[in-house]
């Protein structure tokens, strides 16, 4: 599976996970993905924001402009209550999927 396909499968889960603890802006989200994946997964601007807007449209995250003194305002995204349910569900699904894949690949090596 190409990097693009992996992204499509897991992108929603990644973003929802990253805004679970606290609201984050887009650039912060993209840097966290890159850093925590060790550079294996990257989301550039043209990929990230359409996904953010789609998640916002679904009501899973909510964006809000925040102004801080001496800084330009930024749009922060937070997880909504509906997004929390989706995140929990996707986590379970992802975990089950990975475990299934692991079982298959481990059997091949046994």
């Amino acid at each position: 599976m190409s990097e693009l396909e992996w992204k499509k499968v897991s992108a929603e889960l990644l973003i929802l996970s990253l805004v679970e603890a606290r609201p984050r802006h887009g650039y912060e989200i993209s840097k966290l993905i890159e850093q925590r994946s060790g550079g294996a997964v990257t989301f550039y601007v043209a990929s990230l924001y359409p996904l953010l807007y789609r998640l916002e449209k679904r009501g899973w995250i909510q964006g809000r402009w925040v102004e801080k003194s001496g800084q330009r305002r930024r749009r922060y995204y937070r997880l909504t209550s509906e997004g929390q349910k989706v995140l929990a569900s996707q986590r379970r699904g992802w975990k089950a999927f990975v475990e299934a894949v692991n079982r298959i690949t481990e059997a091949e090596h046994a």
Partner: protein
Amino acid sequence: MPDWSMEISRRLSSLNLESAREVEIVEELSQHLDDRYHELISSGATEEDARRAVLMELNDGEIFAQERPGVVHKTRGEPAGHGRGGQGFVASLGQDLRYALRQFQRNPGFALVAIITLGLGIGASTAIFSVIDNVLLEPYPYKDVAHIIYPRVHGATQGPDEGRQGFSSDELLGFAQQNHSLDGVVGTANDPVLYKHGAGVEWLYGADMTPGSFELFGMPALYGRVFQAADYKPGAPPVFVLRHKAWKARFNGDPNVLNKVFVLNGTARTLVGIMPPRFGWYDADVWIPKTPHPGVSIGFAGLPERWFVLGRLKHGVSVAQASDDLTGIVKSLAKLRPQDYPAQFQIVALPFDHSDGHLESTLYTVLAAVGSLEQPREKKSSRCAQCWGQARRDCCGFCWLRVLYWQSVERR
């Protein structure tokens, strides 16, 4: 620091976003690119390399393209938050129109069907309402039509719609001079007119009208004037008034025909007035002033002249009271000409605008009649004469519905 807004806007242009929403996205993405640019500079890249790298990432639009619908839908249905301000309605309307046009382009067949359906629906609704409005809601152009009545000699054994409603000059004068229930009494009689002009001769539908007729209807002329008292005096210059429909059909609506002289039934008459479009009393093309005189006068085709009588109820007088009043007047005349009356009779005053049945049933009848306009039956009925003064024509329910329909069309 490069200005990314132009590059971003250019890439967003195809999405046709609402302007306020586009501003927000440009601002948000510009910040992201600024941060990315600074990061690259900090890592040792030259400004040119950093700018080129950022633009390349901006062009990494494979997923962006797949996500476009999400962006578009987001901006269509949801508040844009900060910056939306009052641009709202006009921008939203423009966006909706563009969206509709794009949908039409994608589905021209559906668009065509939708447009035709809407057009037919609106047209049909307008046509039906036009008929209902003219026939039921506002069928007569006359002033205070609810107080206009017409009398009928009704024999005791006759059906409710039967009886004589042509009255002699003596009866008409008796009504006019002796009644206590009416503010005005007028008569109308058929008077076919032979119109002679340079190209030949032709028949017109004419109607004689007694003094005060136009005043009873409360109808002024569209051009010129209606009849005046002086027009009825012996030796007064002959005049006539023309129907709007005839004016349009025969004179192409030329206002210069007013005050010109026309030869009608061999008499040179001056056209003094042209009536408004809705006025078509007695279905005549021309109206001629005529004063009724006592005694038996000869009218159309050498027959004794008969007048269709109209009266306007005085304030507070009922139709029943008017009937009794007029019956008393005619009883004395019946002794002089018993051959004109049944053995037992009364004068029944009928409201000019009376109708039978409920509004709903009438609506359905009219709607059904619209489909039967071309199939009038040959059945005698006096109803048309009652309602439209077409005493000279035999007709039936379908016929008067057709008259009503075309009256409404003519009014448009």
